[in-house]
């Protein structure tokens, strides 16, 4: 899962003018023709940096995203849900593995990325800094957060970097199951007993503002954003993704008799755009910078996994082995 990967830090694009003009023209020509860039190709430094950051954050979001849902594996109601949730969370860990690998082809090792995550130097999707209070929260994530991730990932799968596209192709296929499973579990509750309906409504109320921040704040138009779009690193603006998402999912939520906790939410038929209460971006910034309900726990858990796993890795490490980045 993933969201708003391009919005966390201001993009610095120094040194673009220092790049080799002939190589740059060849690189941009390839992208303009719809050809993919592969790891051994020449690429501008900005392209490499930006992709590493984006894919790395995407990978972190998968592995951290496994936590708020993973907690419900031991409590999932019934075999059908238990098996599906196990497989779903396992997929998210698998997505992290695929994405770290794709980022590795650009020259940053997996261990560097994991260290940066644990030390707070590298971000992940902010929604996972919030807890899942009940089973219904996990169902809402599986459906509506994964749905957001799919909007993002489908856009990115048409990007220009070969290894990222290959990983996303596989990821999108698996997300189709997540979305169906999530929807199914919400539908059962929303059409079920009054206790269930109340649970799922409360969970939606808790998660709606996270859903609205999922794609990040409106992009500031800048030369750099424009460059990244031309290079097919950034494939759609945050607002475009949010609008597309609302188009697809608001009707599906409402048909279940659920209410969306935003009195201003409506589609303006003249502009074709959704209007809504602007989410609290100050809170968003505060939480993403560390001050959220679960930041410390999420990183603490990742750190524990690394530290308690260190003896295993040390025991198996071949002392003569040398790191080679994966090929594709």
């Amino acid at each position: 899962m993933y969201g708003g990967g391009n919005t966390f830090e201001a993009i610095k694009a120094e040194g673009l003018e220092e790049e080799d003009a002939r190589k740059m023209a060849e690189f941009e020509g390839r992208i303009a023709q719809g050809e993919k860039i592969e790891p051994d190709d020449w690429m501008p430094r900005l392209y490499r940096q930006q992709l590493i950051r984006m894919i790395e954050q995407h990978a972190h979001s998968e592995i951290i995203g496994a936590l708020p849902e993973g907690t419900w594996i031991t409590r999932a109601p019934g075999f059908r849900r238990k098996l599906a949730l196990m497989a779903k969370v396992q997929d998210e860990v698998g997505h992290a593995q695929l994405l770290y690998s794709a980022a590795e082809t650009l020259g940053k090792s997996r261990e560097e990325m994991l260290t940066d995550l644990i030390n707070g130097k590298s971000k992940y999707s902010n929604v996972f800094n919030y807890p899942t209070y009940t089973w219904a929260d996990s169902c809402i994530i599986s459906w509506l957060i994964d749905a957001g991730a799919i909007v993002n990932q489908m856009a990115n799968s048409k990007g220009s970097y070969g290894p990222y596209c290959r990983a996303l192709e596989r990821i999108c296929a698996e997300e189709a199951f997540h979305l169906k499973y999530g929807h199914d579990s919400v539908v059962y509750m929303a059409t079920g007993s009054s206790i269930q309906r109340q649970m799922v409504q409360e969970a939606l109320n808790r998660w709606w503002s996270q859903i609205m921040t999922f794609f990040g704040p409106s992009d500031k138009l800048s030369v750099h954003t424009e460059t990244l779009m031309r290079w097919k690193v950034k494939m759609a603006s945050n607002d475009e993704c949010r609008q597309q998402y609302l188009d697809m999912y608001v009707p599906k939520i409402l048909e279940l008799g659920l209410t969306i906790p935003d009195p201003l939410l409506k589609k303006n038929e003249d502009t074709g755009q959704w209007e809504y209460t602007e989410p609290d971006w100050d809170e968003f910034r505060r939480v993403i910078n560390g001050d959220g309900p679960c930041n410390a726990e999420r990183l603490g858990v990742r750190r524990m996994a690394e530290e308690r796993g260190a003896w295993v890795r040390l025991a198996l490490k071949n002392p003569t082995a040398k790191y080679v980045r994966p090929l594709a």
Partner: protein
Amino acid sequence: MSLKSLDPRINRLNLPDGEQPPMEPKAAFDQFETYEVFAQKRDNTPFTYAGPVHAPNADVAFLFAKEQYSRRSACSGLWVVQTRHIMVSPYANDDECIYDTFKVEIPEHTAWPLESYEVFHLKKRGKAHTHIGRVGATSYQEAYHKAKQAFAAQHPAVNMWVVKSKNVLQSAEEDRDMWLTLPEKKYREPAAYKVLDRIKSFKEKQQKALNK
């Protein structure tokens, strides 16, 4: 004090609470070498590149590869190769063939005996390498030339990988039953979730309640 969580699993781990000193940076190479994995979806289809795993040796790489790359779709076999054993050509443009644009010296002396090499082609940038065949050669260079003679005309490629067959760990014929029950794990397929009828009858019920 240990960290209090809503997650019962986490509470059982007794994690320290409060601000922690930053984690020591990991050694530059804390984990393992990488292995590249190729999966065969069904009989008589080529092995296709699936992705890498980090592993300490080929046996463990196989264990990892099996679950990371063949747990979700049909599979009849798996190959695992250490990344550094794969020789990679440069990449050509999509409208070119790598064998036309990239030249390798033909080794002068070809010694005996020939060794077997596996050849993989990338048809188009962004796609996955697939196994195209096997050649006998005494060096990677020679294998490249043999591959060019054998495959270039019929199978143009933008990139080729070549690896000694002996460096490919192949799943055994008798291990195929490990993938036997895959199709039965329906709970991880989208098709297992059908709620349209449930939504429809819910809406009808709501409508009835409104009409009353």
